[in-house]
Structure formats: C-alpha cells, structure tokens
C-alpha cells in the first residue's frame, strides 16, 4: 500500500473532479458533497477513460414514463458506451455484484502530518508546490 498526494482539498470543489496518474494508473478524484472518492479511470468494459465521463443523477422509473431522479451528481457515465457507475462504491448500475471499477481510499491529511508521515512522489514531473503545514491535502492509496 502506498499513499500519494494528488491535490489540495480546496482544489476540487463540491461537484468537481481531478484526473491524476499514479504509478501508471489513471485515477479520477471526485468531491461528492465534501466527501472524496477515487476511481480508476479505466472502464471495465473496453478500457475507456471512465473518469472523464459526464456525471449525473441516478435515473429510475417504476413504470413507463415515471422518471424519478435521486442522488444528483453521483452517477458517472463512461464517455464511450455510457455504462453507469456509482461514484461512492465503484459499482456498475447494471450489475453491481459483478461489474465494478476499482476504487481507492482517499484520505485528507494536513501538512503538518505529512511532514512527519511517509508519502511518495508521483512518477511524472508536471507540477510542483510546497507542502504547507496549514493546508490540507488529499491522498489516494493504491496497492502497487
């Protein structure tokens, strides 16, 4: 298990997302109402860039024509074939038990804790910034 810093907390507003790459994996980090979720950005169907897809409500209907919406902003649709995934769980809508996308735990840690705890650099140099003790950072944990 290794943890990687991917963003500051205020970089991803509610309803927003950030795409990152960690050790060869494309990962999308989403902010649902102040909670953070990270999903592998590779659709289990045909490998599409899942986390670039549109986000919307859960759409259901008990009988024809009776559309009901719930959980706004929590369903991710693959940019390719529109398979729907629950951002909170990574489960596909059509077969939650068997078809899902990998999820990674996200934690929030402050700069002071990071100074003394273990952390790792990302593989590519794209952006650099200082870790400040009064900022909060999002960390994604992967199984290398």
């Amino acid at each position, binding site marked *: 298990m290794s943890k*990687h*810093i*991917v*963003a500051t907390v205020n970089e991803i507003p509610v309803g927003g997302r950030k*795409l*990152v*790459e*960690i050790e060869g994996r*494309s990962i999308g980090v989403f902010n649902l109402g102040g909670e953070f979720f990270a999903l592998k950005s*590779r659709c289990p*169907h*045909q*490998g*599409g*860039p899942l986390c*670039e*897809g*549109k986000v919307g409500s859960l759409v259901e209907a008990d009988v024809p024509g009776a559309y009901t919406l719930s959980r706004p902003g929590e369903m991710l649709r693959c*940019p*390719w*074939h*529109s398979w729907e995934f629950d951002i909170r769980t990574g489960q596909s809508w059509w077969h939650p038990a068997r078809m899902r996308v990998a999820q990674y735990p996200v934690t929030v840690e402050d700069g002071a804790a990071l*100074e003394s705890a273990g*952390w790792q*650099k*990302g*593989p*590519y*140099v*794209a*952006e*650099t*910034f*200082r*870790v400040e003790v009064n900022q909060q950072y999002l960390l994604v944990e992967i199984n290398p």
Partner: protein
Amino acid sequence: MTLTLPKVQTAPALRTREAVIDCDIHNTIPDDKLLHPYLPARWRQHLDSFGIGFYSQGAYYPRQHMNAARTDAWPPGKIPGSDLDFLRAQLLDQWQIDYGLLNPLYLAGEQVIPDYADALATALNEWLIHHWLDPEPRLRACVIVNYEDGESAAAEIERRATDSRFVQVLLPARTREPLGRRKYWKMYEAAERHGLPVGIHFGGAGGWPITGAGWPSFYFEDHCGMPQSIQSQVISLVFEGVFDRFPDLKVVLIEGGFAWLPPLMWRLDRSWRLLRDEVPHLKRAPSEYIRQHFWFTTQPVEEPGTPEHFRQLLDQLNMDDRILFSTDYPHWDFDSPGMAIPGSVPKELRRKIMSENARALYKLE
C-alpha cells in the same frame, strides 16, 4: 519541502504490436461552407438555407450522446470527427492503425431534390479528397453517391474510380426501396466494373417507418433496430438475384454487428427451398450467395455472456475470411482495438479480423 504532482493522461497507450485496419471511421464537416468551392452556385444558396440533412423525414430519434459521439472525442471548439489532427492523435496514432476507412454519414441519397443530391455527392467526394485523403496517407474513403438514382450513382462512381484511395461505395441500411430492387442496378454495375465493394452502413431514412411494424418510440430502438433493417437488405439483394446479375459484386455490411447472420442464412435457405418456384433466377442457396459475396464489420460487436458462445458463433458463421474489424470512431459505441474482440479468439483468426481480411478486400499494402 516540495512535492511533485503526477501528470494527467487522457488514455492509456495501447501496448500491442498487432496490425490494425479500421474499416469504419466517421469524419465530419466542421462547417458546411467548406463545401462551397465544390458546389455549383445554384446549390450553394440552397446549402446555406437548408443544410445537408433532410428536414422532415420523421425519423428523428435524439441520440443519447451529442453528435452520437464519445464524450472524450470533441476537439477543442469543434465537433467530433472534424479535425484531422485530433483524429490522427486519438485514433490513428493512439492505436497504431495502418489504414482507416472513412464513411462520412452525409447521405446524399436522402435528399429528395434529385439535382441537389447529385451535387452534394460530388461536392462531398471533393471535400474528402482535399481535406482528408490528400493530407493523410493512412486514410481511404468510400464514394458518396446519390444512391436513389442508379444512373447518377454510376456516374459518380466513374468519376472516382481512377483514384485508388476510394475503395468502396457508401449506401445506408434504410432506403426508399429494398436495395435489391432494379432501380439500384446501374449503381451495382458500375461498382462491379470498377472492383469497388458496396458498403451498406447503419443509418439512412427512406421515408418509411424505421421498422416494418411502424414507428418505435425510442432512440434505443432506432440504434438497436438497425440489424433488422440490414437483414431486410440482405434478403432483398439475394432474392432479387443481384448476385446472379453481378457475379463479381462485393457487399460489406457495416455497423450492424453480425451474430444474426448464421440464423438468417438458415432461415433464407429454408425459405428458398420451399418457395424457389417464385425466384427461379436464383441458381444457388441464399447462404451460398452470402458466403461468396458478403463481408461484415465487427462493430458493435455482440457480447454474449460467455466466451464459449462467442466461439460457437464464429463456428456457426464459418466466415473467418470475411470479418473486418472496425471502431466506428468517434461514435459512442466505439469498439476499442485492444479490447472489443474477445481475447479467446485464436491468434490466426484475430490477425485476419484485425487487418488481413481488410487488406485483401480493399487491396491495401
């Protein structure tokens, strides 16, 4: 201290060394005005007023995706499929594609004004040459024709036949009459003479309800119902004796999937055995004509629940040399060259599907 943030990458690189030929790509026109240089003055005004599409066919089923495209296929500020550089990067280079076959879905034959249809077809082929074929050697294209007028279509085929980058004639699955009917024969005659396959592609609007049982309600049915339209065309081409009349004609069925083909062949053979008195011009069983004259692209590849069923399908089909891989880029039901064809397909057959069958059919290097 400082820390480095990882770089964002939009798609994983394909790690494969297999050759890929993509037999179905949909390039688009970013702005209708690009056609002006290729249109007579009479039709420039009409294009500006009425556009390319037809305005009252009744066959409008709004797609679930804007422009029916993958949501990641939009070049900045442009519509999907309209930017050659973007297409190069996201498709040809990304998947190391040897050749891509352009089937732009501007169906001149849907136009009800005959002269406009003719002019559009010519203009679209000119646009293809100058904006796509000239700048990108990996691309090939279909000839766009006014398919509802056999003579006009034949003339346009003649016009393009000497340019070897035009490798096919484009027809849609939904036409004003079934495609085996006599009005289309002059077009087949020209195609056969020049060794060009005709491609019957998903889409079209012939002025009829899009099923034989009336207008359905949903885009789901427009999209998922295309195999039924294509099957009707296969039936027509066979039973009208098109292949007896044009023994060297080749037909490619594009973007309909293919799992329905074995049971269709069985049904047509049975129908013919019982009803052959009505069609004495047929000299052989329908399945023999189909095996001899038809190819089909893979996308949208069917996904049976088990790999064993896919293997059974290929076995029942027994047309290993006729299967042509396609992506349908940039549409949403895009098939990935890396993952669409099941890994369980034997290597030799996979090579045929991914490139060799297309190389042979379209005479590519």
